[in-house]
Every structure is written in C-alpha cells, then in structure tokens.
C-alpha cells in the first residue's frame, strides 16, 4: 500500500515539472520535443509496469552458466573416476579472467559430485594446467589466443573443456555455453569429448546443438 503511494507521488512529480516553467515559450518553439518527451515518459511507465522483472525473474547470465557448469558433471562420465584417483576431489579449473568465477565460487561451496567434494582452482599459466589435475576446465575469453596450446595440453587427458566464447566448439572445445538472445544455448563437440574418453549422456545431447569436427549435425 505504501509502495503505491510513493509510486504515484513520483509519477506526479515527474509530470508536475512541466508547468513550473513558462510553458508557452517552450511549447511554441518545440512542440514535437514536448510531445515526444511526454510520450516517452508514458511509454516508459507502461513498459515498466507490464514488463517488470518482478513478475518473471531475470538472471545474470554468468550465474546461470556457473550453475550449469556444476550441473554438467552429472551428465558426463569420466573414464578414470573408478580408479583410486576417486579420493581426489572433483576439480573445476578456471583459466583466465571472467565473470563466472565469483558465481562459481559460491555455487561449488559444500557441493559434491558422486560423493566427491567439489573444489575450484584458478590456473594462471599453461604450466599450472600441465602440472595439476582437473576434471572440468573453463576457458575464459582472454585465454582464447593460447587456446591451441591449452587444447594440446588437454589432449588425451580426461578433462572436459567448457567456455562461453562464441565459436569455442568450432575450434575443438567440448562444451560451449552461449548466450543467444535472452537464453543460454549449449553447443557440444561430441567427437572431441569422445576423443578424450568422456561420455556425454543422451539427455544432455538432446538439449544441445551438436557440433562435430566442425560440422553441425542439427
């Protein structure tokens, strides 16, 4: 109730500004300007009231991508996860600077995948990637210039590569999280994943656009 009062008060104030200054002078000189200004305010109001995000939630794309990344592990089977290395925590590594990391940090807290604790690692250099184990690797946009080298280091290891850079799967990346319009789309390079011994569940494949060895299937 109180919200309504203040709301109308502001609307009135916005409109009340017009007559407070000698209206004739301005109206005469710029009739179109006046009309457009009023029109815009009204249009704004209408748009705001009908499309208020309070009715339908809108999320930060990076938060959705972070949650998706965590979810992704449930739809992939790693070849070495039956071995003794299972004691090792499930590791999500991030290379480079991106908006996902802060969300990811919060998302992985106290999470576990198939009984293994999930940890987040930040890799600064290629040699970090060479030396340390990880299961999921998120490649930031600023690392794409060295992507061929990242790919070479990952080759043959059971690491799923993920990025939100457009064209990632076309360059031999495995999973692309792309914002198109106002939705997140998934692109999967199945062949590349298979080559590294990773199996992706049919359910996830159905939701994704398949990009294999450079040619789209769907």
């Amino acid at each position, binding site marked *: 109730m109180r919200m309504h009062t203040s709301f109308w008060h502001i609307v009135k104030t916005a409109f009340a500004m017009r007559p407070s200054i000698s209206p004739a*002078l*301005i109206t005469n000189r710029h009739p179109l300007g006046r009309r457009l200004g009023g029109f815009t305010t009204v249009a704004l109001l209408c748009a705001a009231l009908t499309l208020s995000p309070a009715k339908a939630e809108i999320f930060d794309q990076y938060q959705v991508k972070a949650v998706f990344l965590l979810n992704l592990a449930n739809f992939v089977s790693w070849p070495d996860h039956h071995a003794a290395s299972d004691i090792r925590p499930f590791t999500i590594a991030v290379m480079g600077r991106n908006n996902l990391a*802060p969300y990811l940090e919060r998302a992985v807290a106290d999470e576990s995948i198939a009984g293994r604790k999930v940890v987040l690692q930040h890799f600064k250099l290629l040699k970090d990637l060479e030396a340390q184990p990880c299961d999921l690797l998120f490649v930031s946009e600023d690392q794409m210039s060295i992507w061929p080298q990242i790919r070479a280091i990952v080759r043959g290891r059971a690491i799923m590569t993920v990025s939100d850079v457009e*064209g990632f799967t*076309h360059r031999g990346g495995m999973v692309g999280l792309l914002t*198109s319009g*106002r939705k997140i789309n998934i692109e999967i390079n199945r062949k590349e994943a298979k080559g590294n011994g990773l199996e992706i569940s049919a359910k996830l494949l159905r939701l994704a656009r398949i990009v294999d060895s450079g040619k789209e299937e769907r």
Partner: protein
Amino acid sequence: MTAHLYQSIQRPLAIRRVWAVFILLISIWLAPAPGMADEKLDYLKSLKIEDLLNTEVTSVSKKPEKLADAPAAIFVITAEDIRRTGVRTIAEALRMAPGIQVARMDANKWAVSARGFNDTFSNKLLVLIDGRSVYTPLFSGVFWDVQDTMIEDIDRIEVIRGPGATLWGANAVNGVINIITKSAQKTQGALVSVGTGSHEPFNAAVRYGDQLGPDGAWRLYAKGFRRGDYVNGDGDDASDAWDAMRGGFRLDMDLNARDALMVQGDIYQGNEDQTLDLPETLSTPAAGPQPYSADFSGADILARWRRFDGDKSDFTLQFYYDHTERRQFVLQGIIDTVDLDFQHRFQLSARQEMSWGLGYRYTQDDIQSGDSISMIPDSRYDQLFSAFVQDEIVLQPDKWWLTMGSKLEHNDYTGVEIQPSVRLRWKPTGVQTAWAAASRAVRTPSRTDHDLRSNRDVVVVPGIPFPTTYQNVIFGDDNFESEELLAFELGHRWQPDTRLSFDTATFYNQYDNLRTLELNSAAAYAEMNPTPHIVVPYYWDNQMEGETFGVELVASWQPLDFWKLTAGYAWMQMLLRIDAGSQDSMAEDQAGFSPMNQIQLRSALDLSHGWSFDTELYYVDELEAMNVPAYTRVDLRVGWQPSAQWEFSLNIENLLDDRHAEFGDRTDIVASQIPRQIYGQITWRY
C-alpha cells in the same frame, strides 16, 4: 535574446526531465525488494537442467577487461555496448568513451579527439582497425566517413587516452583508438540486418560464416546504406547526404598448437554531399555556401601470423596493404600504403617481461591539384622505419610493477624521433590499482605541413595606373618540425564490489613546437597565371607552446542483475601561447574547439520477455571559439529479442531538441546541425 533565454531554460529542464525518468525507474525496480543473490543461487540449483536452460538471462553485466590492470587511461567499448546503444558508425560509438571529444560536423563528417585539440582534421590521434593504421598521411587525421565495418562484427573498441607512442608510434600523441573485430570462429552462421529511419532511408548488412577444415573458420560480409540530409542553421536540408557500400572477408585458422593465421580484407566505395564556402579565386568570384559532391573508394588486405611458445614467449608478424581514393572538389588523391610489423614478447627472467618489435611502412600518394589546393610535388613516396623495446619489471610480486620502454623511428620528414615512456603500477589491495606515467610523443609532419599550397583570399588594391591583385597563399614548409608532447598522468581504479567500479585519470600535458601559420611578406613574388598577381606567402611554422590538464572519471554501477548504470565526467583546460615572434592570430583559438566539461550517463536495462531499454545522456559544454553552444543529447533504444534468431529495435536519437550544432565551420566546410532522428532495425541471426 529569445534564443538565449530559451537555451538557459531548456537545458535544466531537459536534465530535470531525464532525472525524473531515472528516479521513476529506480523507484519501480527497487520497491519490490529483489531476491538475495543466494536465494537466486538456491533456486537455480534446484532447477532441472532443461529448466535451467529456459531461464531468461540478462546480458547487462560488465565484461571483464583484459586491460583492467593496464597502467594507462583505458576504456573499452564492448560489442554489447554497441548493440545496446544501436550506434551505426564507429565515430558515434566513441561517444561512450569518457574523455573523448566526438562532434558530428554534418551527416558524414566528425571531429574526434582525446584530451583536446579537436578539429575536423584532428591530427594527434592514432586509429587502428585490427592493427591497420587508418589515419591519412595527407594531414595525419582520419576520414571518419570511410572507417567502417560490419558493426555487428566489432568485438570491442579499446580507447586509450594519453600518449601510446612507445608501443604504437608517432601520432599516438593524445590517444589511440583500437577497433578490434571478432574472429571468424565467433561469427558462424548467417546474420541479416535491415533498418530505416527518419534520416537514414536505407541501411542493410548481411554476413555469413562457416567452418574451414577442423580448425579454421571464415566469414563474408556486405553492407550498404543511404543516409539523408541533416539540417542547416535555418532548418532546411543541409545537402550532406551520403551513401556507401562495403564488403569483406576474414579467415582465422589454428595451423597447429603453436601457430595461428588470420587474413582479412575489405573493399568499399561511396558518395557524399557537403556544403563548402570557398574563398574567391583569381578566376572565380566567391559564391557563398554551395553544395559539392565527393566520392571515395578503397580496399585493404591484412595477414597476421602469431606463434605461441608456451607461457614464455610469443611473436606476431603482420603485413597489410591499404589503398584509398578520394575525389572531392578541393582535392583528389590516391594513397597506397604497405606495412610490415613484427613484435616479440618473452619472459626475460622471473621478474621481467620484454617486448620488442620492428616496423616498416611505405606510403605512396598521387594528388591531383585543384584550383585552390595542391601539393608540391604532386606525388611522393615515404618510408618509415621503426623499432621499439619495452620491459615490464615486477618490483614486488602482486604489488609494484614498472614498465619502461621507447620507440625509435626514422621518417623522411624529420629523421629520427625518440618516444620513451615510464609507467609505474601499484596494487595496494586486490580491488585497487594506482598508476603513474611520464611519456614523450611526437606528431610528425604530414604532407599538408610539408608540401601544401592553398590559395586563400584575393585582395585587389586600387592604384595608379593599374590596380594590384594580391593573393594570400598558405605554403607547407620543408623545415616544419614535429610537434612535441611531454605527458604526465596519474590514475586510479577501484572496484569495491563486483557491481561497482570507479576509474579516475588525471593528466598534465606540455606541448611544444605546435603548428602556427606565419606571414613572410619578404618572400612575396609575382605570378602571371591565371592573371598577373602578387603571391603573399604564409608558411606553416612551429611557434606555439601550451599546456592541457584535466580529470576524467568513470563510475559503473549495477544495482540489479539486469540493470547497469555508467556515468562519466571529463573536465579539461587548454592553454596555448604563441611565441613572441609569431604573427598567427588564430592558432590560440584551437583551445576553444574542445569542450571544457563533458558528462555522460548511460542506463542499460533488461526487462522480461526479451525486452530491453537503454538510455544515454550526453552533455557537452560550449565550444567558445566556434560559437557552438552547450548541448544535451539524449538517445533512447527499445529492443525486443523474442528468440535467439530475431531482434527488433527502435532508436530515438537527440530526443530533447529539434536540432543542435556540435561543431562550427572549419576549413571552408559548412557545419550542419544534428536533427532528432528515429530509427528502426530488424536483425535475424541463424
């Protein structure tokens, strides 16, 4: 009197109305308290994967900038900024960079500069498109009408205020603008965009991209537009309409784990109208402002090879060829440029990263002399050799860095030029960076400075037995020296929260050897053609010095996931002094060609169901020496993306007034006024 009264009332009202709208928006979205971040996280985690992919997301968040730690005043205009504001030219996009002066002179001309010295032919700014320098050696400035590409394919525009001469070389005096297009891998599939508006009858662009083998990609694009007349001071059509067509390609390929190759090319042509108020010549009397048409065409091709050797080293070898042609009433010319550039970066030790490079540029031109302007000689070729070395030293890990380097150039006009810089960066906490820099940069002579002949006013003095005809003529000077800058900068960046950031930069620039025009009556001589007259020569000279200083602030705040606000303020002061011996009465006026205060306020808002609403407000102070009053410009864009394929948008530009001037008449070109415009566009992607 009425006009003055009107302005003084109109401005505060305009600002107040915009504020009212902002307050309104704030109240609407802050009233229903937004869910806490962690509530949202729990909610998203609870969703099934298919529902997660169906949530509506916003793209207003700030993209992380690679350059956020750079010890320089850098601002990045992202592809998202360009899409959301609906700008259709590169020059208009630059308005978003605080501290850059963008003044639209008419429908097809812009005056763009950083930190002062703005002019139609601003000559202290370096502009690069994917590493290809686009300033013309004719006057060291940029023909903004031909600097274009598929707007949707621009990845980002990096705007560096202040000298970047150590890395980029001569003419990077007041700033560097780096336009970077997306790699071909990022532009897969088809895109068709069609638009029309009140002053833009037709605007269309098509692009298609596909894979090339397993590790490569290509794209092709074509675009064309027709932009209509703006208005003159009386409100009539200004005769400055233009049209252009352009096409191009880009190919990106990972050859192996170490090598990547990029090749791209463009071809374009166009026509434009302009209004010129030319002085009387010996054969034709002055006719007052008259419409003239001009046409331009060009082509360019660029290849770049990059090799990465792990974390330790990488190098780039780049080649480009650029051909431009321009035919306008006062000047017709062809310019060809070949450029070869090599850069190598390597880790010298655990604490030192070295970069060095070598460059070679060959420029050839052929200028056809007109009645009023000619170049002596008509044709000329020039070579430019350059080398640079830069060392970034970690003084204290994660705290203090020192960058030192210098560029060494040899050009055919002034010989060797040395342009060093020292930059210090300090990161006291994880969210704060402070930096300081001192640099020297030069603006080397252009063809205009060296070889121009421009016939100006004709004066007839009555006498007995015959009247005597005098013609004032501006001549380039073989002894014209480089304009010099010593720049001192201080900057600070602070991001107290992921949703809030501040960027402050201050500068103190000391210029010397600035260009003046000096009368040399002793060198007057008689010419017989076309009619007998006495030439009164004026020569370009370097008899001015000066200082500029100022502050630039940018604040960015994302109060909600789907709403971002950006505010910018730039204040600067220019002080110019001609030397005691100088007779140039106009040179100091340049100080009044750049606004003292500039404010911008931008709002990017995503609504549900694919709707978005963007607002930009720009306040630009008066240009004192040009009699151009201050103006406030408000642009709005409503966008709707019902699906990944379709996007519809409606722009209203310059909402608050019917028309306003942004720049005055210069070099015989009559400036137009910028009208209110409405523009609609449909984009289809697949």
